[in-house]
């Protein structure tokens, strides 16, 4: 161990340290999508070892010993090459998502009436996933929190469905509109506590009042920065139930005419217009999409607030220098290159809206 060696990542597969690897990529795509890790250059003679569905744990150890791993998941794919092989792992939400997830039926006989979405997640995982007493918890529940407002499962029925898809679809309906100018939506993230990976519902943090988790500037952490401006929507067309339609216009449409269509179970024009207002407000954050390549703050969570300070306001926009929201991150490590991280700031993938120009 040399005191000047900066990068000392460690990989475990099912508690066995993998000492030969070429590099790895960890992707947190955000928007409640499942995180993944791809490890390359593992020695090929492990191909007959029990790898599938085994736990893959990566400690980044960039600069010092990490207290918690940068990734914990289960191996879902092995790709042997000529001399070595690659493995792909996804975070524990993979157990309840995708084609391999055990489906769930919610009908009049077995349903979750009287439960909120959070209560449903808690009950489903407790009763169906973390069932092997004494074994490692597969999906931790310690960080699970109720949404505000609560999302009710009352009346929710479905035929064979993937549990995580139900969770994602339901969560997309949740919006905290205590402050209508800053509506807050939710996403699902995974948080490691050193022992297990925990599922958590995270409310969008306030950009202006939240103390940033990490400060970046050109002299401190930023390797490169790219950004694009997009005009934010200034009006909305809203379609409700039974032919209900409405429009909402944002002031005098200062950034030009750019519209968005919304559809939902709105039964009156007033409700529909309000939905349009909320959607327009929600999209105001998305004006500036930044791609930031950085060399610090690797343990940031998706959804965290970071501050970017660009002292060179001649060559770059002054609008860069403020708080931004992390919407996705990718960490790359190569034995000859060290570690770097690419953050996507602000840009949320489109969801319920279709932009029209």
């Amino acid at each position, binding site marked *: 161990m040399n005191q000047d060696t900066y990068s000392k990542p460690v990989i475990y597969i099912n508690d066995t340290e993998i000492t030969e690897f070429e590099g790895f990529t960890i992707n947190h795509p955000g928007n409640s999508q499942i995180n993944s890790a791809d490890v390359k250059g593992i020695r090929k003679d492990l191909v007959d070892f029990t790898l599938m569905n085994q736990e893959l744990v990566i400690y980044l150890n960039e600069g010092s010993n990490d207290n918690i791993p940068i990734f914990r998941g289960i191996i879902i794919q092995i790709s042997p090459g000529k001399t070595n092989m690659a493995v792909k792992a996804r975070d524990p939400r993979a157990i309840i998502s995708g084609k391999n997830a055990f489906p769930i039926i919610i009908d009049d006989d077995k349903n979750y009436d009287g*439960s909120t979405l959070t209560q449903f997640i808690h009950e489903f995982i407790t009763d169906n996933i973390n069932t092997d007493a004494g074994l490692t918890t597969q999906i931790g529940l310690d960080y699970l929190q109720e949404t505000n407002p609560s999302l009710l499962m009352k009346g929710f029925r479905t035929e064979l469905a993937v549990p995580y898809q139900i969770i994602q679809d339901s969560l997309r309906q949740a919006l905290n509109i205590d402050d209508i100018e800053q509506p807050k939506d939710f996403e699902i993230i995974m948080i490691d506590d050193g022992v297990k990976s925990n599922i958590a519902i995270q409310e969008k943090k306030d950009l202006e009042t939240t103390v940033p988790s990490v400060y970046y500037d050109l002299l401190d952490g930023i390797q490169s920065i790219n950004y694009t401006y997009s005009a934010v929507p200034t009006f909305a067309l809203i379609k409700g139930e039974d032919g209900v339609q409405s429009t909402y216009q944002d002031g005098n449409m200062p950034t030009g005419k750019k519209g968005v269509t919304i559809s939902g179970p709105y039964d009156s024009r007033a409700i529909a217009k309000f939905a349009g207002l909320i959607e327009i407000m929600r999209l105001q954050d998305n004006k500036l999409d930044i791609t930031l390549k950085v060399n610090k703050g690797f343990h940031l969570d998706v959804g965290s607030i970071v501050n970017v300070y660009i002292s060179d306001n001649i060559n770059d926009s002054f609008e860069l220098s403020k708080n931004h929201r992390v919407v996705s991150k990718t960490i790359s490590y190569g034995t000859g290159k060290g570690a770097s991280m690419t953050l996507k700031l602000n840009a949320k993938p489109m969801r319920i809206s279709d932009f029209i120009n």
Partner: protein
Amino acid sequence: MTEFLVTDQGIYQNGGQSTNPFFMFEKVHFRLETTEPVTEFYIDWDDGDDNSPEKANIQHVKLEEPGFFCTSFHVYTKHGTYHPLVRVKNTDGFLSKWYTAYQDEGTYTTKIDTSAESPATHISTTDTTITVDAGHGITAGKVIRIDEEYMKVTSLASTNVLNVVRQSIDGTNLVGTAQEHVDDSFVYVVAGSNQNDFSSLEPRTLDAGQNEFSLVSVDSLSDHRIPVFRPANKPPIAVLKTDRNRIFSGINNEVLGSAAADVYIDGSDSNTGSNPPKIKVVYIDGSTNKSQTKEVTVDHGDTISDVDKILRVEIVNLKEVTTATDNSLQAGERIYLTKGAGGFAICNVSLGQPIVEASNPQNIATLDLSESRTKASNVSISEYYIDDGHHTSGSSRWTAASHKLQQAAITTSVAQDSLQTGDTLHANFRTYYSSIEAQHTFQPELDPLGTDGRYLSKQILCRGQVKDSSGTTRADSGQSYTSTLSGDTIEYSYLDHDDATNYYTTTKPRPTSLKSSNILLGTLDRLTPDWKDLIAENRDMGVAKFLLGGGHTSTPFGSTTQVIPGGTNYTTDAENYFLMSRKDKFDRIFIKTVNAYTAHAAPTLDRTTIDNSTVPPYRISIYYPSKNQSGSIVWKPLAFKDTTAYESVEASSLMRDGSISFKPPRDWEIAKHSTISEWPFGTSFDVDSGSGYGGGTDGPDVKWRQDSYALMICMATDGDMSGDTEKNIGIQFMKPYTNGHSQVLTMVDNTHVSLNSKYLTQSITFVRNGTYNVITNRLGKSEIRKIGAQSGSVKFGGTDLSGDTSRKDFKDYQQNGTPVYLDVEHENGDFTRFYGVIKSMSESHTTAKMLPKFSLDMIVSHIIEFDSSGTILSNDYISLGGNVDYESRYLQ
């Protein structure tokens, strides 16, 4: 099936439980019974946004055949009081009313005092005067509740005697049933009206009992059929993160403490003794009503008074000399700034790092708790606590001598009941923002220098804790069970602790997930182990140390007196043992050492004569419980990494702050004392000999009673360490940090090592390269824009000469990535000093009798330029490629 005890008012709360915990995110099983057969049950759990049909969280239980009951469960995910509403559908298809609770519990105020009455044991059902304890503050017109009976206070017969109308809220109408009340029954002052808010379902005020006009029917005042739920809060979770976990040694202004202090210039490290070069110091003058940013040029022995913060320190004469010369430094010599003469170091400068600035981001780690979270969505984080690792020197917020690191979160009022799930950080660690910046520096007597003259890197443990706002949503009163202690007290996040009992066995029940029994036990003697529970020592920096390696048998744990080693040699048996256990597997332990090296000198690696300038001989081994072939749990050896050691030097553990880390064994058995078959370390090793600390009660046989993951950490040292100079070697605390609330920073000495004394026989070549953007117009003329400067490298080489160490030194620097500097003297007498790292070294061993040669490629991080008198010419550190932009400074 979980069973709950009902308390007064039909309230189910953890404070009223004796066995089964009642918490959020735990299942509440229930059974509903009806008086006639029904087909459907509807339960509004009252944890929707309100009770209206659109927003209520209603559970629908449909029976296959008409029946009289149903069973199911519910999980509450918010904190507070919930009044469920229940209705049923009968076999004819008619829906009943919504039935819900009447709840007016009130505030516990005093107790009945019937000791002077006859009979002295109770108040009868007809008494209208109630004697209460003194100091109650109850006035006429108040409504009180005793047990399940309400009474209207009409007047005070005397100070402590209340005249009341029994069974009444308004003084006229009777409600409920008259009861007898025994001495010391609790007296509550109530509102006199139902506190169950169902206004979104029924806007009118309803009295208790049946009515003929509303969809809602309120339960009886005294015969409770519909419960009220108060699930207890679960702790918030502290998530401590840092933007970088490797920092350079910078300016540690925290040494100055909470008030302005004098700063002493200590140049005694230089061979010139009393006359090293001057330094320029930019600082904030903290004199009363005089706060100013100032610059002074000071000399060895000078004192700068009333310093609030040191912002920048710079050596005036940068020229390196080879022999002791006034106003000059030789390679490796440093000038320190300390808090007063002989105090802790604030920073140091040398020719290898002639400028240090408080604003250098590479010196700063941001410790951030903003990603911490509460368990309940209606509860927020209200307080942040960050221990930023200034454990020995203290900080502006926290004092090592008088403040503990952490304390027990228990109350002595009811049998050492735990208030939290673990210890709490000292109150002085509180910060008013969710993040703080931490900057540290090396201390000459505490941190060892390496053989290259740089301090060995050290690790710094930082921890965070948060408190939530559940105190404002808490309703659990707990009074009606055995005490006034609430069963809903948890509001701090879990913090690692060493308490075997208080966070496991509690009067108020808790879920297993919230209970922990950890231990850190130690003994200084293998053959007659006098075990000591080190819980107090591990919480406290005020205690000098709590352990030494094997052979330290003569000094008690926790003593502030000098420790005199003795006993056997480290190459034989370990004499000191530490038994550490945690609820979950862990794989890294931080060890805070306390050492006393000879300042300004690298400890010698030759241990022929051992004193405080020697690398202390300490050897660690670790064992873990695991099953053998016969299924018995025995202790097995564990391989581990040790960053407290001096790299590859044998038996050099504990010479610096660092970590023990290991791969958690797959066969690590969760165990307790009674399940361990063998204790092979010594005779009756698991039993406290009882002669000293614990009086026989601190051994594993007593303390290790709960299943947990344990390690036996064994330490041995040299029995020849019998002098008194190595007295302060030891451990201050040791804590696992496999958790989300800890972060370990690694501090590296960024002092570069001089190459100027090495023999170079090849040309020194380098290129100064700017970055330009050339814009050519239609006429072929160009506008040339300077947009930056490139770094680069310096190439040079030498010859491997017999009796000269240059080649070996270069090789070591290349192998270790040691930061180095090289001076190039120009013909006009100016110097360029290159700072960087030797990236590659090529060696050429030629045939015949020609001497072997080597070539070096040094990556340049920055340069500095100075004239023949050592005065800086460049704008601070600059790029090899030239100047780029202004640097931010505190004083321009």
